[in-house]
């Protein structure tokens, strides 16, 4: 066989190299040198991320291993986006991972994290369901371990058991769907499935489709497959929560698009268009309705991320490059905004152990910088100009309406009305920090330098990603050349 095709997998290979280096250092480095582990990991991964950006501009689009694996500039791009997110997560997690309870296991944390990332790569690049399932599982199983990382906190265990049980259940359902697909088409290659099922839908196809959507929707936490989200986000250690909320969601969203377009694109009108509409409306609305009441910041962001997933899905309905670009851009912006929020939450949690919205009252008096970052994050998530969130929301709506039917106008209108609800609960945080007059329960503290670096990166992203149009334009050009549609 032609080994040159491994070159197409250079990102995966590079990631594996990083993983191995971290693993080896963690295993064989002398005790006193281990303190540098976090720094080394961040540095290695940072180098890798930057390198990835350098290469993906001239990225090729080709398939490897008899078409099981595909890569293209836009795929390289989404992987890079994930890398950026992971890098920020790594930086933000340094303080937490080095505290007494977890310091001995920090190596495992990094390794598990990198492995899950590798799984996500496979999910994104897979063009064959076997590869996809392997990616899916290796992206979700280690996460269960990471969720359970806080031995001391009971919530951590509860979250992880809930996560593992529901995850395995959903993957069982998913594979059931796959077996139907296989029975119908006799192949697990996306392209061959596309050809085999043709453009007329049958109960079997719809059943298979529903199960597949349920399986991926679980990762994306689309309503009604989202119920694990809140508990797991709340229970998991905050860095893991932020990782779950942005990275795995982002990768799943992209993979979802690929599956829907590549295998089931032909049965768009008479199978999954309406499923998708229903899911989007449900997701956005239910997510918002739950988010209104939340007092625990992590749980609150969990539900907000549920509704955000709904907005991300809007990028799919167009089934065109514009939608793809809007989606990738949305994910990018979402990574920055959400990680900014989580960065503030972590900083506060690490220093005071408080994660309740009521504890944030009057924060602007004691910690103006943190509350400013938090406010920007909230505004960006709510889609307020001139922050990046506004642009991503506007673009994704525009891309969705590009599809042109009356139904899509109604759908977007509902989504837009939901933005008001979301604005309400995002403003609740701002209100708690800026407007309420009670003296703050959080005294002034100095956040660690890694936290600050992370926040600076994310805030810079929030401010500049939108106004600097190069980013979107670049993504769009890549999406045009993606060859997915």
């Amino acid at each position, binding site marked *: 066989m032609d080994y040159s095709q491994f070159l197409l997998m250079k990102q995966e290979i590079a990631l594996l190299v990083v993983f191995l280096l971290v693993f080896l250092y963690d295993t064989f480095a002398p005790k006193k040198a281990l303190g540098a582990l976090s720094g080394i990991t961040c540095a290695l991964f940072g180098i890798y991320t930057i390198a990835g950006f350098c290469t993906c501009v001239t990225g090729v689009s080709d398939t490897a291993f008899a078409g099981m694996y595909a890569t293209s500039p836009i795929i390289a791009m989404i992987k890079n986006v994930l890398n950026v997110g992971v890098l920020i997560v790594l930086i933000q997690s340094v303080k937490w991972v080095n505290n007494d309870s977890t310091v001995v296991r920090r190596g495992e944390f990094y390794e598990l994290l990198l492995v899950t990332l590798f799984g996500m790569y496979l999910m994104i690049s897979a063009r064959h369901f076997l590869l996809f399932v392997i990616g899916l599982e290796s992206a979700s199983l280690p996460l269960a371990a990471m969720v359970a990382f806080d031995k001391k906190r009971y919530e951590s265990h509860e979250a992880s058991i*809930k996560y593992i049980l529901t995850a395995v259940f959903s993957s069982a359902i998913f594979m059931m769907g796959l077996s139907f697909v296989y029975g119908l088409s006799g192949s697990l290659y996306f392209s061959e499935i596309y050809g085999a099922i043709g453009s007329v839908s049958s109960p079997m196809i719809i059943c298979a489709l*529903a199960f597949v959507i*349920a399986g991926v929707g679980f990762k994306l936490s689309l309503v009604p497959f989202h119920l694990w989200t809140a508990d797991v986000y709340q229970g998991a250690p905050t860095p893991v929560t932020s990782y779950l909320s942005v990275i795995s969601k982002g990768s799943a969203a992209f993979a979802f698009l690929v599956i829907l377009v590549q295998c089931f694109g032909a049965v768009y009108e008479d199978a999954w268009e309406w499923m998708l509409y229903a899911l989007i409306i449900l997701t956005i609305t*239910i997510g918002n309705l739950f988010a209104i009441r939340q007092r625990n910041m992590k749980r609150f962001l969990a539900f907000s991320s549920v509704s955000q997933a709904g907005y991300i899905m809007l990028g799919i309905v167009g089934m065109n490059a514009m939608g793809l670009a809007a989606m990738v851009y949305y994910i990018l912006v979402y990574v920055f905004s959400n990680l900014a929020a989580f960065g503030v939450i972590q900083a506060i949690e690490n220093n005071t152990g408080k994660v309740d919205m009521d504890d944030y009252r009057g924060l602007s008096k004691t910690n103006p910088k943190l509350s400013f970052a938090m406010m920007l994050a909230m505004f960006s998530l709510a889609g307020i100009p001139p922050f990046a969130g506004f642009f991503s929301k506007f673009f994704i709506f525009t891309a969705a309406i590009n599809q042109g039917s009356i139904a899509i106008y109604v759908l977007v209108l509902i989504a837009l009305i939901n933005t008001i609800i979301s604005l309400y609960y995002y403003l609740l945080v701002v209100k708690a920090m800026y407007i309420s007059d009670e003296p703050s329960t959080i005294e002034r503290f100095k956040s660690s330098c890694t936290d600050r670096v992370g926040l600076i990166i994310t805030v810079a992203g929030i401010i500049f990603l939108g106004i600097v149009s190069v980013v979107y334009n670049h993504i769009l050009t890549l999406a045009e050349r993606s060859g997915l549609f």
Partner: protein
Amino acid sequence: METSAILILAIPLLMFLFLGLAGKYLTHKWAGILGTMGMGITMCLAYTVAFEYFFSGNQFFIDEAGNRLQHVVFNHDWLNFYDKLSIRIGFLLDPISAMMLVVITTISFMVHLYSNGYMRDHHGVWETGFQRFYAFLSLFSFSMLGLVVATNIFQMYIFWELVGASSYLLIGFYYTKHSAVSASKKAFIVTRFADLGFLIGILVLSFYVGFYGEGNITDAFTFTSLTSVPVDGIADTYHVSEGTAQMIRGLFENSAAPMFMGASVLTWALVLIFMGGMGKSAMMPLHIWLPDAMEGPTPVSALIHAATMVVAGVYLVARLFPLYLMQPTALDIITVVGAVTALYAAMVACTQIDIKRVLAFSTISQIAFMMVSLGVTRIDHSTALGHEVHEGLGYMASMFHLFTHAMFKALLFLGAGALIHAIGSNDYTAMHGLRKYMPVTHLTFLIGCLAIAGIIPFAGFFSKDEILTACFGHSTVWAIWMAAVAGLTAFYMFRLYFLIFWWKEHKVHEGHHAPHDQPWTMTLPLVILAAISIVAGFVPFGSLVTWNGHPITGDGFLTNLENLNWGVASLSLIIAIIGILVAMVMYKKENAIPERMHNALPNLWRWCHHRFYWDELYQFITHRIIFGLVCRPIAWFDRHIIDGTMDAFAAVTNKASFAIRGFQSGNVHMYVWIYLIGAVLLAAVTMICVL
């Protein structure tokens, strides 16, 4: 000419700005002097202009046939609505505006002079806000002058509003008094309501003139063209473009406009415009503000609410008279309103106690005279008691009465002011028998009363006589009616006179110094005005002020006497004298007749005394109906229904969020159930929909 015209408007305005802004840096004395001097100069300018207009014989003002012409001194665009229609601010000189210039400036100057004395108490302490007072007086004079020289109806409306505002400010001069504040508010709002009619009338008029007129509407909309003489057989003496004249004529005569509720829309327009006049001139049922307006300082009442502003309504009708002439229905309405108001006001005046109220109601009644006499004017040959009536006599009579009435009513008010200033009360029960103490005031007041009662040879006699003649010329019924009102006028004025100066001896209370005549600043105006109201009757109005500039009498000094219609004159004289005699019998000496009188007809007396409960009616309408049944419900609706709906959205969202929280039960079984049901439903529903 043009410069003096501009100055006539500019000086009062500048005086207002100066006194208003810099007033508090001036001493009271100098503020007064400045204001008075300013007004004096304006008066001189106005006299020169009027004199030039009437007597110079310049071909701008009078043509070789001896007809007086309308002359636009200047006319500048102020606001372009669109290319065809714009508001212009200008200076129109014609008989009535020239006459009004004289009236306004004279009275205004008198009042300025008078106020120097009136606005301080016996110890010479100035009223607070003395400068403000003069500023407002100047503002008023400016607005009133601007109103009378208006070249088009828009300009008239603008200054109409300004006049109302300055009247508001002056009535509310004593702004710490509740009564004054509410009176000023009432005055403004009632007139504003009338102006609504005026505005709509203007809108209709402007639309039609524009709709049927070709070319620039603005030209067609100046008074010169609007009032271009419509009636055939009489030369169009105003020299406007024949086309425009024809257009307007055609528009109004064979009313091309659609009908609305039985009358041509143009009739409606004219009636609505007259409604504006009713508001300013306090015709029934919009008269209620004028009596309350007496809360203002007395000089103000003399200037605004007796002589000048209140006749603006009459002036407005006279201004547009040729249009009204083409819509007899409108004229009839004016007649009826005027006649009813005249009688009503006279009856009420007989029973008032506050001397300023009496004067106020007599003002209403007198203005009603003018209205009636405009209303009965027709261009046809008619006779009164066998004698020939000149064409358009009523118009002339009305203007004549406006002139004379301004003089003697101002005189009466200033006299009343002198009394009030001396006594410190508006109430004649506090006065009685003042003739010894205040001889000058007494004499001048008497002259005023004689004038208004219409005793030859005082001013009122001639004008009122002309009016009655005109009435006879139109319809005997109205003539008798108005004659009766004239009798009432004589009666109530002399009732007032006797009650103030006779009835019983004035007793000076301990500690009070005896009342006495005023400083020259106050007596001088009285004397001058008295003199005017003696001689004003001999002004040959017939040759100066007529509806189409075409003189109807000679211009000799005795021409009014010569042209008297002795039948009518004697009738009115007799009635007047009867009225005076009755008053004398009842009120000269203290006696019980009045008592018996209103025991005899208690209801009539009570109704008159309470002004037929008009105020109560208005109170009910505004507070109970407008506020109670409109405003409050709307406010409630806004707070509870509209706002409630908005809040309801939020509440519903919150409720929903609580209602569905059960799904997030934290129980894995539940989660899996929902997951499964979701997946199955997704499949099932899609199958049902698609297949």
